[in-house]
């Protein structure tokens, strides 16, 4: 028995059975009231510190509250006291994965799958972890086993899609990729509609609504298909967030760009931009590459060139850098670095780092004391119009996997993109180039979430006067970092 205080006065203590308290905590957890759940579960644990279900749920709550180490300790203890419960093992997988303990994660996932052979979620988890470990074939196998048990399991389809796409099997991959909108907690792409998704067949008797879905990087990457769409449906309009107008204006007049659903005209069919590669039939050797397909406004270019000239003498090699993406991205832990990781570049003579970073990570610029000057131009950049114009003043852009990388690449600028061991599917595996952008050079982590090797390699490439693939990332200015030596 436990007891509960009645009312705020706290004078009367009413005994409440622990099972009931646990049930209330569970309701809190399911309805997203984590603080309340946390309080109740800790209350139970104070009385029954080894109760496995409580430990397990308390671990989940701690995990959701960002207290990952505590979550791990509680869930490991739950497993210790609640021998052989598949659910615990299935859930601890995600904690191990978050903490980058991928061996433990895969072991727990396999153990969970063996304990719950009919539980497709265990196999789905295993597929996700295998992807993160870059064991792509195993990832596909796990996802397929899950799908044998539960053919409509959207998460497993999506896991399979990502694995197929990253290994280059785009034909099957695009089809599986269509499951992305059916994942239970996926953000809704657009308001409910009774109109069909476009099937790629031409029509000119109605409006096609394009939806600039997913992240800004996706929009920049996939807007290349708009001319292909216009060839088939001349009456296309696009719904996007306001930030994307400078990019989409390249393809559509402004009166066909909408950033409020209620202002969009009636349409006959819709299609998300991320669905166009499938309709187009894009394959690795058949990617539409009309790079540069984005161009900066010349007046703005002149302004930013003047501003940059005032901030960095032109003898410097100007390198635009971005070290972090949006923190809410589900892959941000893996894809984002820190400004301090750029230290090997900052040690190079003749280099000026130009921060294009936006958002809270931009504050790291204030605490930078490296040798190369760092110009925090991001503080003055208002929108993608500015970013595009500014890119014209730079010799090279070095970025983690963010929209700025796509922007620079779509403008045909020398762009080096730094990738996690298990990157987004679009960067494929093992190669230092990409079929999507001819001026991009890829640098890949060799150890999960360890950036030091990547930045050492980047610094070495910068210092190398004639890299083997010099066509990519070749500085425009005569004075390179190496020449300054």
């Amino acid at each position: 028995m436990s007891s509960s205080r009645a009312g705020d006065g706290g004078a009367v203590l009413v005994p409440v059975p622990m099972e009931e308290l646990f049930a209330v905590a569970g309701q809190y957890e399911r309805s997203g009231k984590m603080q309340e759940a946390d309080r109740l579960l800790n209350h139970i644990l104070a009385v029954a510190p080894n109760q496995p279900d409580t430990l397990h749920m308390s671990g989940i709550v701690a995990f959701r509250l960002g207290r990952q180490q505590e979550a791990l300790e509680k869930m490991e203890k739950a497993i210790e006291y609640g021998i052989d419960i598949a659910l615990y093992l299935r859930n601890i997988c995600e904690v191990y994965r978050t903490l980058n303990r991928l061996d433990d994660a895969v072991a727990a996932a396999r153990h969970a799958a063996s304990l719950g052979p009919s539980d497709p979620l265990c196999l789905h988890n295993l597929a996700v972890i295998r992807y993160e470990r870059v064991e792509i074939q195993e990832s596909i196998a796990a996802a397929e086993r899950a799908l044998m048990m539960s053919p409509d399991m959207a998460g497993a389809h999506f896991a399979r899609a990502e694995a197929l796409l990253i290994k280059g099997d785009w034909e099957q991959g695009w089809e599986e990729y269509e499951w992305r909108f059916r994942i239970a907690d996926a953000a809704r792409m657009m308001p409910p509609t009774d109109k069909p998704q476009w099937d790629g067949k031409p029509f000119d008797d109605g409006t096609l609504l394009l939806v600039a879905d997913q992240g800004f990087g996706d929009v920049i990457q996939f807007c290349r298909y708009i001319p292909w769409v216009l060839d088939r449906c001349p009456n296309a309009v696009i719904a996007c967030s306001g930030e994307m107008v400078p990019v989409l204006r390249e393809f559509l007049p402004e009166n066909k760009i909408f950033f409020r659903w209620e202002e969009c005209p009636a349409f006959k069919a819709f299609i998300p931009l991320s669905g166009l590669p499938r309709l187009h039939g894009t394959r690795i050797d058949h990617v539409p590459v009309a790079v540069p397909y984005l161009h900066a406004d010349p007046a703005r270019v002149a302004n930013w060139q003047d501003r940059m000239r005032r901030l960095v003498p032109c003898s410097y090699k100007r390198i635009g850098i971005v070290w972090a993406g949006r923190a809410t991205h589900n892959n941000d832990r893996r894809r984002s670095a820190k400004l301090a990781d750029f230290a090997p570049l900052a040690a190079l003579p003749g280099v000026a780092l130009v921060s294009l970073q936006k958002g809270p990570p931009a504050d790291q610029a204030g605490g930078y004391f490296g040798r190369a000057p760092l110009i925090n131009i991001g503080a003055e950049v208002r929108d993608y119009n500015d970013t595009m114009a500014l890119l014209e003043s730079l010799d090279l852009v070095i970025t983690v996997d963010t929209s700025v990388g796509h922007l620079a690449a779509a403008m045909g600028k020398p762009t080096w993109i730094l990738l996690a061991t298990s990157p987004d599917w679009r960067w494929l595996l093992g190669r230092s180039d990409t079929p999507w952008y001819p001026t991009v050079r890829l640098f890949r982590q060799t150890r999960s979430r360890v950036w030091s090797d990547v930045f050492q390699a980047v610094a070495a490439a910068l210092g190398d006067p004639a890299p083997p693939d010099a066509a990519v990332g070749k500085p425009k200015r005569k004075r390179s970092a190496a020449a300054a030596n």
Partner: protein
Amino acid sequence: MSQPAIQMCLCGSGLRAARCCGMNPAAMPPPESSRHLVPLVERAVTAHRQGAIETAERLCLDVLELAPDRPGALTVLYQIRKDQGNHTAAEALLRRVVALDPNNFAATNEFALLLLAKGAIQEAEAQARNAIRIAPQNPQAHNLMGMILTEAQRPQVGEYHYRKVLELSGARDPILLANLAWNLKNQGRMEEGRELYKESVAAAPDIRQTLLGWARLEEADRKFDAAAELLDRMEKQWPNDPGLLLSRAVLLGRMKRTDEALTVLDQMAGQSTGGCLGPNELAEKGRMLDQVGRYDDAFAAFSEGKRLARELSGHHYLDGAAENLITRLGGFFTAGRLQTLPRASVRTDVAQPIFVLGFPRSGTTLMEQTLSAHPRIVAGDELPLINDLTGLMPRMLNSPLGYPEALAELWMGDQREGLDNLRDYYLQKVAQMGILTPLAAWFTDKMPLNETHLGLIALLFPEAPLIHVIRHPLDIMVSALSNHFTHGMFCASALETAATHYVRVMNLVQKYRSEMALRYLPIRYEDMVTDQENTVRSVLDFVGEPFNPKCLRFHENQRYARTASYAQVTERLYDRSRFRYRHYLKHLQPVIPILRPHIERLGYTVD
């Protein structure tokens, strides 16, 4: 019924508060209503002149109780309080005399001197300017201005006023010549200063201050024998003069005769009442003890020097004011607001500033000496102009607000060029200082803690290189401990407050840097010592000037740096100052927790 207690004024004037500092000027009766008191004032003046101080004091208090705005009675009471050593009351009374009668030359002159003596240089300058407005042909007014501007580190303009005195008086007063000589020494014009000292001493051989000033010129010019000779000459006449002994100790220290220097300081202590040295002597003694490796003794001397300085000057860290200013600056200069503010345009017809930023004692003098060895860069030294502008800004922008909020006026149609005006004020003052040469494309401004005003600087000079000299924070603390300086709102009056101010300013710099695109380059003092050529090259690259090997031989730069570091920067680069904190680690324990986050952020360790 009990009588309400009479509240005497806290300034110590002897008047009631309501008749003194708490007086409401608007409630004063018109002056003519108290004319019947004039005979009493005259009696007070006469009594004072005749030495009947008590009578004079009583008369003045009586008159001022009835008519607190009688300038004659206020002046006599001021004299009495001043002679009694009651500086607070004296200042309050004299301030009132000047406020009541702004055209009173004698009072304005006196007030400016009083302010100069107390170190309130900005206010003193305002009064000295008034004195010249009242009496433009009066040599005394120009002399005062010369003294104040020399102290205010604008010796070039001060020189103008001293020379005006020569012209107006038609005579070559030996004290004036010595003052002018000191002024020229501060401009680094040693030979001209020396000639004037010679002339002054020839006309008046026995003026202690003149000989002392001359000896210090010789010492600063590295003519140690000549300095020693002058001190010997003084010793014959004033064998135990504290100024002489301190100069002797400093000279011996520079000649590396540390033990003898310490003996001289001990001699000074023996002679003084209470056997104690003053703050400057204690700092010098600490530095000597440091040189010979007696670190515990050195720390004791430094600490005692700080304690004594606080006690004698009354200067404590202006904690609340510092926090207030820094909070307001951080709150004002945000990326969003900066996107809406204009920037001053860049003048191409005059040399442009390079701001050498850093906490006092972090190596800014070394950086300036290095840069100014370059043929296209001249040294501006510690220019007080950015600080002046923060005071002048509300008036120049016609704003009811203070700095930085007054910058909001830039949004008004009639103040759009406001920043250009502020910029031109700065550049005009620099031109007046005579530091620019025909070849100079750049001049340095190494006023320590100018980084507090990075936001304003970047608005005024958006192209100016900002070279921030970074040094191990604990080394800075050791230096702050071993020197007396007033920068940073008197933060160096104690170790803990120096650390607090350091943290505040570095946090503010971090805020500026994350909110603004600045032409900013941090340079480590330690790199200047261990990797001199690469460091100098990177600074010159950043400025946009070609490398010049002269910059590596900055110690041959004949320029004299006025600040406390001058003795160090005339030596070749030496390693002694790097990680000097290790000798004082146990003494620095109280400030390590305060500084640790910045030590780590800057990539230093404590070992």
